[in-house]
């Protein structure tokens, strides 16, 4: 599914290397978690994979089902099946949430040569999905993320994910700013999308999210590299002992 080999990335405007050779293989249906200290490059990796500007790839490659992601525009990556749930979902005044969702769904369908959803079919679909995420109709009518609470923004990300049905989902600190109930709701939304084929990369600081979204593999990232990988128990170790032991081990 997602294959990252020796990915090296620096900031476009300054001589600052952020990713120093990341390797990662995620197979179909797998859930991988990445943990790591602040500034280790986790978010940068998610941005680079989804095509945000401001970064320069200096070496390595990233492919999705064999397609060279790094050579594609962000919209083409999305149409190819990549989805990033933002750590900080962006507020867009003046663009209605519903219009945004429908444009996104149909743009992707068009790009893949599929038939676009009619207004009626779209409405039916979005209402059903929104309901399961406890997103009310009012929220759908409002401008994208404007005036949404932290929890509402994250639920809106999951709604987009559910509507777009990507192959590969990256969740960048989706648990940040969520209370216990909201985290449960969001996790249920994510778990509902697990179908044995769709893959997930969950970036988080806290083991708690991984109680809800159970990972197959946990990676520890530090200083622009994956320094350790293991099973779910690795997350528990971090929760109890922090990163100090693991970092010391590697050095």
């Amino acid at each position, binding site marked *: 599914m997602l294959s990252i080999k020796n990915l090296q990335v620096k900031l476009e405007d300054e001589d600052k290397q952020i990713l120093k050779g990341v390797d990662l293989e995620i197979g179909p249906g797998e859930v991988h978690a990445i943990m790591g200290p602040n500034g280790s490059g986790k978010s940068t990796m998610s941005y680079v994979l989804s095509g945000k500007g401001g970064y320069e790839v200096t070496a390595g490659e990233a492919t999705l089902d064999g397609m060279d992601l790094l050579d594609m525009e962000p*919209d083409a990556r999305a149409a190819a099946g990549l989805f990033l749930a933002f750590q900080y979902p962006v507020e867009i*005044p003046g663009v209605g949430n519903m219009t945004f969702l429908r*444009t996104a769904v149909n743009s992707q369908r068009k790009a893949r040569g599929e038939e676009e959803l009619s207004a009626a079919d779209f409405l039916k679909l979005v209402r059903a999905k929104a309901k399961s995420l406890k997103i009310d109709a009012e929220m759908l009518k409002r401008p994208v993320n404007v005036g949404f609470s932290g929890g509402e923004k994250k639920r809106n990300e999951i709604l987009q994910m559910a509507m777009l049905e990507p192959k590969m989902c990256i969740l960048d600190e989706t648990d940040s700013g969520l209370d216990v109930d909201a985290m449960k709701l969001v996790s249920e939304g994510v778990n509902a999308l697990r179908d044995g084929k769709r893959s997930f990369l969950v970036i988080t600081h806290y083991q708690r999210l991984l109680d809800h979204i159970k990972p197959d593999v946990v990676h520890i990232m530090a200083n622009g590299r994956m320094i350790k990988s293991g099973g779910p128990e690795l997350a528990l170790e971090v929760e109890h002992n922090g990163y100090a032991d693991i970092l010391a081990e590697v050095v």
Partner: protein
Amino acid sequence: MKALTAKIQAVEARVSDVDLPAGGKWVTEARKSAMARLRAMGLPARRDEYWKFTRPEELTKADATEAALLETDEKPVFCDIDRLRLVFVDGVLDTDISDAMAMDHIEIEPLAEAAAKDIHWVKDLYGALETSGQTPVERPLAALNTALAVQGVVLRVTGKVPRPVCLHYVRDKIGADAMVHHVVKVEDGADFTLLENGPAADRINKVLEVDVADGGAFHHIRTQGRDHERRAVSHIFARLGKESSFKSFTLTVNGALTRNECVIEMLGDDAHATISGACAGDGASGPFHQDDTVFITHDAVNCESRQVFKKVLRNGATGVFQGKILVKADAQKTDGYQISQGLLLDENSQFLAKPELEIYADDVACSHGSTVGAIDETALFYLTSRGIPHNQAQDMLVLAFLAQALEEIESVDIREDILNRLEAWVERHRR
């Protein structure tokens, strides 16, 4: 002194071989007075502070520059709105192709007919609001219009008018240098919507004088015509009575030069005024320069005024905003709001803004904001990361930016109509 002499000489160059139009007693007096005022102040010149951002030559020179006719099979704006339509062809009212000038609660008369009479209600307004609007800032092109315009309509509104009146300006041939002057009197408690659309002429100088009496409501929505080379200067002079309401919205897309001045005097307590505009300019289709110049005087208690202007500019297009709120000493409890924003889609375009507040009362709330910026890259990435192609995402953000100005239009149908025009513009100019 030398500069003033040159400006006065410019008047002579412009009007020396023009006679004042013939008419009844009242209009002849008004025209003579306007001509005398124009001769005293001279035509605008580049050095004038008020014309710092917009070069007046194309508007002041004796002969208008020719403007090619726009070829389009697009239906005109407002064509699906139930309205009484008056058609001006190359700046001349054509009653044969206009609707009958009769509707409940409104008297409609061509200016030429009103002007032929010795006595008419319009004598108290024609040129009077324009004269009042010359202080403290001179507006010579409006005086020129009062002196020479023979085309226009005069409207007296006495109740709630069932349908809008639409002034539809079409061009038939190249070479028209039009001057149009309308007068609207909204009587106590009356309610009226005026629509205007179309380019009118190669060059047009238009004046609209509006008197809104106590409790009256005036709505005005206009689009200025897409002919790329047309040039236009317009003045709105409005006087607002107690508890009255005035709302004017302008859409400008294309046009080599557009200068829209709006002068509002709030003379009755508890009145409301909104003046707003959306502008979309693309220098790739020809020069584009659009200027909104607004002056609102609060001279009564507890009045509210809003100015909302949004301009999207690309390929060397220029947008100008000069907006002033003057709050006189006795205008307590004034609420004045002003926002002007430019969205530049490239580094060649510019937005020039001069927001001004001059406040003499001590219990007022006035706010103003002016911003200029590029497309929000974070928002753009968010949209594209969901699969929306870059160009389409940019269009969505452009329309979202302009939407704030469109929200000032009360009628949902008209707002939709305007939005459709903007969507079409954005699509035509997609990169």
